[in-house]
């Protein structure tokens, strides 16, 4: 899904990036650079894209309120979530940033974060704050959407990008194995540096959300049998909470639609 025509950004702002990076990255993306905080003046439907220098910047809740409408982590995949050094060159991240910014231009709200950062800042809650600022939702609607989005992002993080298998069986050995695998993969930039992307399209009476990962994809399998497992309920929950769910790109993209 994409908007009919790209939606332009009013400005690009950096948060926690080395001096000099913002102008170079903004030029590369063909968007006007704005000075760092406060948010640049922009109308009620303004669109400002923010390039995040790391996990701390992504955790700043003021950056998830309007006019901010797109969030792209501009860190090296080798050091996900960590501020680039002042001596580092933006050239290394420019291709990934310009590609993400081009995708951002086709959605009303867009986030592209490393796996490490998406997990650390509770990305689902951040995106729902941005949605709630633009549409009035009841507490129950917001809770259900946040859970569905959280489950989709968790699947992208754990099974997609980190390629950690779920907890098999219902015992502490399954929990120990899961803990061990998750910690090992989260500490490995080859996995934790992979991107999770969320795109939202806000219509008057519906919200469509895509979540993508950079894993190897999966084919949904029928439930194996009688032995219950501690994992494997996420997709079922999403199906119960959303009006419709589609798995695309061999399972690397999930599209959820909610009626408002």
């Amino acid at each position, binding site marked *: 899904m994409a908007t009919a025509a790209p939606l332009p950004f009013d400005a690009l702002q950096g948060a926690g990036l080395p001096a000099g990076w913002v102008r170079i990255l903004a030029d590369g993306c063909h968007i006007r650079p704005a000075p760092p905080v406060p948010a640049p003046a922009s109308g009620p439907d303004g669109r400002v894209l923010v390039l995040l220098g790391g996990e701390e910047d992504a955790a700043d809740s003021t950056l998830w309120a309007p006019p901010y409408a797109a969030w792209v982590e501009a860190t090296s995949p080798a050091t996900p979530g960590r501020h680039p050094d002042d001596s580092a060159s933006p050239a290394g991240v420019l291709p990934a940033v310009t590609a993400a910014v081009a995708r951002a231009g086709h959605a009303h709200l867009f986030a592209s974060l490393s796996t490490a950062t998406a997990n650390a800042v509770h990305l689902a809650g951040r995106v729902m704050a941005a949605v709630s600022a633009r549409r009035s939702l009841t507490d*129950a609607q917001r809770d259900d959407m946040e859970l569905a989005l*959280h489950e989709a992002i*968790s699947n992208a993080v754990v099974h997609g990008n980190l390629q950690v298998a779920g*907890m098999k069986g*219902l*015992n*502490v050995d399954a929990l120990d194995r*899961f803990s061990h695998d998750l910690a090992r993969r989260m500490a490995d930039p080859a996995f934790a540096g992979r991107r999770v992307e969320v795109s939202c399209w806000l219509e008057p009476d519906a919200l469509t959300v895509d979540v993508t990962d950079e894993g190897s994809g999966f084919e949904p399998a029928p439930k194996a049998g009688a032995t219950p497992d501690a*994992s494997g309920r996420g997709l079922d*929950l999403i199906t119960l909470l959303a009006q419709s769910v589609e798995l695309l790109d061999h399972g690397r993209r999930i599209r959820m639609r909610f009626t408002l």
Partner: protein
Amino acid sequence: MDYAIEAKDHESIVRLRGRLTFNDHAKLRTLITEMQGSKGKRQILDLGNLEFVDSAGIGMLLIAHEEMGNADKQLVLRGAAGQVKRVLSVAQLGKIVTVED
């Protein structure tokens, strides 16, 4: 997620706070060990101050339920509200674990 345990002879009350998600695997593991080692037959998890639970949190509660059964104890989930109550209901956890208001 954080928790505080109040252990009595016949039961323990464990008050959970914050968010219970797949990131809490290590804390849940420690909590299960503590509950296994306590005297009380009834291990009550008070969810009143829990703000958010996800499907992995539900899975970990099922592991706790199973491990308490193996240790001849009973797990009770008490006082869920808001989002947590909704998830317990959607996941139909009451069919497997004792859920009290």
